């Protein structure tokens, strides 16, 4: 079930370095929200605060609130492991587990969490691979290692692995930046299908991609190198790309900087 994300006054640090400052936004359920902005503006950092992966990095800590349907992810008794089961993530570089087969990779989330019925596992794996548009390509070699697939297939395998645990939200950190145009198209089509079931947040450096896949777009920027990144504006994608309300957004989108 897709959930709404409400962020208010979020600031994230790496040790004493402030990476992003005072970010507030709402991410609508069953929609795709894209984050754009120049390198180092904190898009990825912000994305990682949404499933508490930021604190995995040494010295990473967060101030502020992230509400997932009224439940604060940073509340006192919240278990980060439970948060990550609800908010899944796909990374920039495809990272299937090298010791596991395609089947085991998709089943990994369920198996390692210990929360599955043996009889259902095969169905879940098939459903997830179909959901990631990969089933037809791998159904005859489910026992082959996942690292033998092409880059685009590996990335769809990682998406299948992420949706197999039935999260409410799917975070994607530049999921196509290591892929060729055809694989990128496959992933973009997939994102369009997945938004029927999940809340999707995608970080991208490719503005055409943001325009193609997203319903809403958030523009991040930083005032100078070493300064924390900030949210400049978030709006309907059409508006951001045609008539943004902030000059910096227009400059960035039209290629005048960044």
């Amino acid at each position, binding site marked *: 079930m897709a959930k709404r994300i409400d962020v208010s006054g979020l600031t994230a640090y790496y040790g004493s370095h402030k990476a992003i400052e005072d970010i507030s936004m709402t991410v609508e359920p069953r929609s795709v929200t894209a984050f754009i902005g120049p390198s180092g503006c904190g898009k990825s950092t912000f994305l990682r605060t949404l*499933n508490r*992966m930021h604190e*995995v990095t*040494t010295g990473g800590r967060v101030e502020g609130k992230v509400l997932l349907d009224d439940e604060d992810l940073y509340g006192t008794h919240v278990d980060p*492991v*439970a*948060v*990550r*089961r*609800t908010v*899944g*993530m796909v*990374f920039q*570089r495809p*990272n299937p*587990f*090298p*010791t596991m087969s395609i089947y085991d990779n998709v089943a*990994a*989330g369920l*198996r*390692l*969490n210990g929360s599955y019925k043996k009889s259902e596992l095969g169905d879940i794996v098939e459903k997830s691979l179909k959901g990631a548009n990969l089933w037809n390509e791998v159904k005859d070699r489910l026992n082959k*290692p996942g*690292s*033998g697939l092409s880059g685009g297939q590996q990335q769809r395998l*990682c998406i299948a*692995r*992420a949706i197999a*645990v039935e999260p409410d939200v799917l975070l994607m950190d530049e999921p196509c930046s290591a892929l060729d145009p055809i694989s990128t198209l496959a992933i973009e089509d997939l994102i369009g299908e997945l938004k029927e079931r999940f809340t999707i947040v995608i970080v991208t450096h490719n503005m055409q991609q943001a325009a193609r896949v997203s319903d809403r777009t958030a523009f991040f920027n930083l005032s100078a190198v070493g300064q924390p990144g900030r949210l400049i504006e978030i709006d309907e994608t059409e508006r951001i790309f045609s008539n943004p309300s902030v000059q910096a957004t227009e400059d960035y989108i039209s290629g005048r900087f960044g």
Partner: protein
Amino acid sequence: MTHAAARAAQARRSTLQGARLPRWSPWAIAGGSVVAAVAVGLGAGLDSRIQWGLIAALLFVLGTYAIAARTEGRRQARDRVATSVVWVAFVVAVIPLASLLYATVKRGVKVFNGYFLSHSMGVVADTEPGGGIYHAIIGTLEQVGIATLISVPIGALTAIYLVEYGRGKLAAAVTFFVDVMTGIPSIVAGLFILSFWILILDLGPSGFAGSLALSILMMPVVVRSTEEMLKLVPNELREASLALGVPKWRTILKVVLPTSVGGITTGVMLAIARITGETAPVLLLVWGTGFINNNPFEGAQASLPLYIYQQYANSAGSNAAYDRAWAAALALIAFVMILNLVARGIARWKAPRH
């Protein structure tokens, strides 16, 4: 292609193409240097074959430079000299190893047979022929096995702590002491257990006491190699697992360790190979005996390195004892080699597939 065109093509290539020595030239130069060195050695009446070899090596490097500099130019000459120095260093390193293996096999096979492997020295005097190393094999297997059982869990867990959890002063201190432990001489480890086990606790010699000393030697090696292997596991795999909502301990157990198990096994096997040849702690703590003692927790035991030493020391000039010492050395080398082969097999079998 017409004649003129061929010539034009050659002229065009000439800026990229220089004179090259033929592929067999290094072999020819090496052969020539050996012949020249033998001639010089015989002519000057040098007795030592080592001197002949050094002269040949020197002639090879200098000859390579002179010939290459004349025909190919200075840059290629330097390249060839670097290559020839690498080859000379390789040969210098391999000669002692090959000669050691040759000597051990040649002298060891004399009494190396089924009888030798399946009998002890119980009723055989050290100066007489007969007897075998069965009791020493039992001792080595038990002592090394127990030492491995002690040090692998402790060492692997320490490495996991250092790589996955350790931050700040405690981790730095542990790393420092592991480094210090790596440098402990085996006799010191033996004396440490001797003062603790035999002098303070007043217990007699036993294989287990030897295992304790051996595990002191083994632990830092296991920690170091496991640590390096765990560091090789890409952080992306840990993050991928954590992002699926897998707890950290399960991530380490199910993702990090399986990815690195091949390398860890190799490291453990190398550590075992290292302690298998230790004599000093065994001499101090296990004492050695000619009889079969299957119980590692009570009474003196034998072990292969100690057996070799004692056969040599107690031989009183008897050839039978020397032969047994060499055959035991052969058994020890074979044991270590089999371990290494097994480790390689496991590493290949468990390696992440691509």
